């Protein structure tokens, strides 16, 4: 399976995301922000980092890059898209996911391993996970406080993909929401970094399930 990883100016985790994709047995494909072409990939990852320095609102500039037009079309056609951290912010800014991400409640950048509970397995990126299972995945962000006008409605619609386990909410996100999906389930965004949690040498491997899910989806198609 060919999985594209977009590099925006200021992306930091694009190389790690490609390495994670490769370690899961898929083919990573580097995608460039200035290209409107997804090079025939079967899934897209928008990685973490500080696109355009995040000097404006996080992700606010990246959403206008040529590659995002192609990503939006790909998403509308049902293609699996995963936004990690800054990538999640870009997807929210682009209107491909609901809600927004604000400055952490503690006002500081926070980097730690957290427990994340899988709330929905009806997405392209969680289908191989156990519902209700707990994954240990690192977070590292300064602006990860998820807000939405009506979190209960979002949950009722099955659009909450991940929640922080009790006591693990690192940023004051509403209803402990760590990641959400679009109604179709093909677009998922989350603040934790699954690409940093796939190699047992480097720590817990809670991120593997997300990549296994998209690989399984591809196998079924």
């Amino acid at each position, binding site marked *: 399976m060919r999985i594209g990883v977009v590099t925006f100016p200021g992306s930091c985790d694009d190389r790690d995301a490609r390495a994670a994709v490769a370690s899961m047995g898929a083919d990573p494909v580097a995608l460039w922000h*200035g290209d409107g072409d997804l090079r025939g990939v079967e899934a897209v990852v928008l990685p973490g980092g500080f696109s355009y*320095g995040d000097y404006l609102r996080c992700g606010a500039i990246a959403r206008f890059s040529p590659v995002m037009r192609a990503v939006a079309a790909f998403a509308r056609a049902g293609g699996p898209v995963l936004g990690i951290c800054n990538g999640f912010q870009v997807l929210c800014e682009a209107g491909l996911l609901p809600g927004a991400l604000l400055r952490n409640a503690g006002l500081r950048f926070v*980097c730690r391993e957290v427990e994340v509970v899988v709330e929905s397995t009806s997405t392209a990126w969680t289908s191989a996970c156990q519902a209700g299972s707990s994954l240990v995945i690192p977070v590292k962000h300064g602006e990860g406080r998820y807000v939405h006008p009506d979190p209960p409605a979002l949950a009722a619609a099955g659009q909450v993909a991940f929640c922080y386990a009790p006591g693990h909410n690192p940023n004051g996100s509403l209803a402990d929401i760590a990641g959400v999906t679009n109604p179709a389930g093909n677009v998922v965004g989350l603040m934790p970094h699954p690409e940093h949690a796939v190699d047992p040498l480097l720590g817990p491997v809670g991120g593997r399930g997300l990549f296994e899910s998209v690989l399984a989806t591809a196998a079924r198609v």
Partner: protein
Amino acid sequence: MSSLVAGLHRQLGLTDEELERILSVLGREPSRAELAMYSLMWSEHCSYKSSKVHLRRLPSEGARVLQGPGENAGVVDLGDGVAAVFKIESHNHPSFVEPFQGAATGVGGIIRDILAMGARPAASLNSLRFGDPAEPLQRRLLEGVVAGIGHYGNCVGVATVGGEVVFDPSYAGNPLVNALTVGFMPAERRLSGRAGRPGDLAVLMGAETGRDGIGGASVLASASFEEGDDAKRPNVQVGDPFQEKLLIEACLELVERGLLRGLQDLGAAGISCAVAEVAARAGMGMEVDLDAVPLREPSMEAWEVLVSESQERMLALVDPARLDEALEVCRRWGILASVLGEMTTDGSLRVRFRGEVVAEVPAASLADDGPVYSRPLVPPPAPPAAEAEVPLDAEAAEAVLALAADPTCASKRWVWEQYDRFVGHGTVAGPGCDAAVIRIPGTGRAVALATDGNGRHAALDPAAGAALAVAEAARNVACTGARPIAVTNCLNFASPERPEVMGTFAAAVDGMAAACRALGLPVTGGNVSFYNESSGRPIHPTPIVGVLGLLEDAATAVPTGFPRPGLDVWLLGETRVELGGSVWQRLTTGRLEGHPPALDLATEVGLHRLLVDLAAHRLLAGAHDLSEGGLAVALVEATLASGVGATITLPPVLPPAALPPEQVPLAALASESASRALLAAPPEAAGDLEALAAKAAVPATHLGTTGGDRLVVPGVLDLPLTRLRDAHEAALPDALGEPA
């Protein structure tokens, strides 16, 4: 060119003798631009004029050293065709003036040093020193420095994986911010400032040049050219990590595509230093066109353009035939690039600006021919032979809790949770461990890195303090199972113009040299930071040592502390009554007196070899170095690492009968004797462990076993881990007035 204000050179920090030297080099009066260039290039910061004669005594050669001191950073061969590039540098004064930007640009600067060698920067460590964190000024400094390091490192995507933070009143008026970065590259890549041939083009890449950081490296900072003009603008540079991230990627693409002949970062003294060093290293000259420099402020004068320390700039040397390709790479990454100069054969730097030649000087005279001083020095007094009197009658449990909660010994989680330690796909062990362990890209091997330096020890005995710093950093590396292979150092001292400071410096260099020789560790580069004093109050002499180690199998990295129950707890090394300069001495008496712990270098070498051997034989489940706060703090950290308690007996304290029996437990807990490590090993490993220790002539004492949720020393103390955790984790947030 002769319209100089009389005495201007003195305002710029040049002595009358140095001006004479410039006059004899040039055979005429220098222009304003030339004087500015010399004042910076011959400044202490750029020329090492006071330290050079001493630094020569440090060993710098070894089989693995591909590049020793004198380049942007040291390069060490790791085998399998991979090299590590690493260096530590100070950004002390800017961080005091403006903690956030000062620390941020310190990180940016050391990252560019690594990049200039052609390596991808992979990970950083920071060695920080402040006064009492409960004081408002120190809190502001700590918060600003930590936020600045995090902001810059996180945003450029270089993991911050370790270091240390120490609090001592001696740093209240002059904090220390020392930043170390390591990068990796193919060993055959020997990129450096050395240009290939005449006609090569010097391409200035990155940010526009502004009036920020003018004179940042020199005394220019404290003088103005003309009263009331703009020259008094802030001398601290302002960082833009986004720009640096683009610069890193563009430079690495240029390097990987073979489009460069050389690469040089712009740091202290800006364009002046970069063009002078590039030309001088190649034994050539350069025609420099300052009109090619993109300016933030069009009204800048030539001297300002020459010495501005605007951040996020690099100078690339390009074969003219490849220029278009190189510029296209820069354009794609969205960074400015313009041809600043052309290499010439005449050895002269000829600088043009707006139709005029504003400077014409021999490149080597700026870079290499600066003054070198053997400054007068007074050797430090010998420390007293007798042990310092330190009370040892406290209740042991209370003492352990007090040590665990001392800000220097306490958990630094508050600090390192603000740093991205994951980016780069290589952090095997990060902050809070004895040493950071970073996988070497594309291999199953790893490097280990630790920084250490105990100013209290160095204040009592500079030579011993420097040697102890080398020993401790190398021991931390060895505790992970990695073999120490090379050193970088940052020597933080007060004014070199004071003979007693110079004597302290010389002694510290001697102590460091002796320890490096004994441990077989070449010094591949580093930094000297003088003038660390405030209102006449000097800091403790603080030699900081960064040690790089090599681990043949990353999967065998030994974790810090006690990873699980049911393990034997061992102590390697001997515990003596050694409390001079210790944390316990400071806590109980508030004084700094006596002599630091004795260091037997042969014993230390044996200990490191043993630790590496034990790890290679897979006999260790965990390890932890003993240093500040002695066995007490080591036990606290080892048990809290994975929340696994232990029941142990205390090791014997030497010499026997030196103390009344009731004082022995506290001496065993608080002594800071060198050359010791705490181990956790499976019971079945006991025989092999004892045999290897005996072979290495390292005493190994079986202390007890891991398990439970308490730290228990029967008859001495019994503390639940929850209490230890509260003391250890909450101390720093408490001192800062924040919830843990």
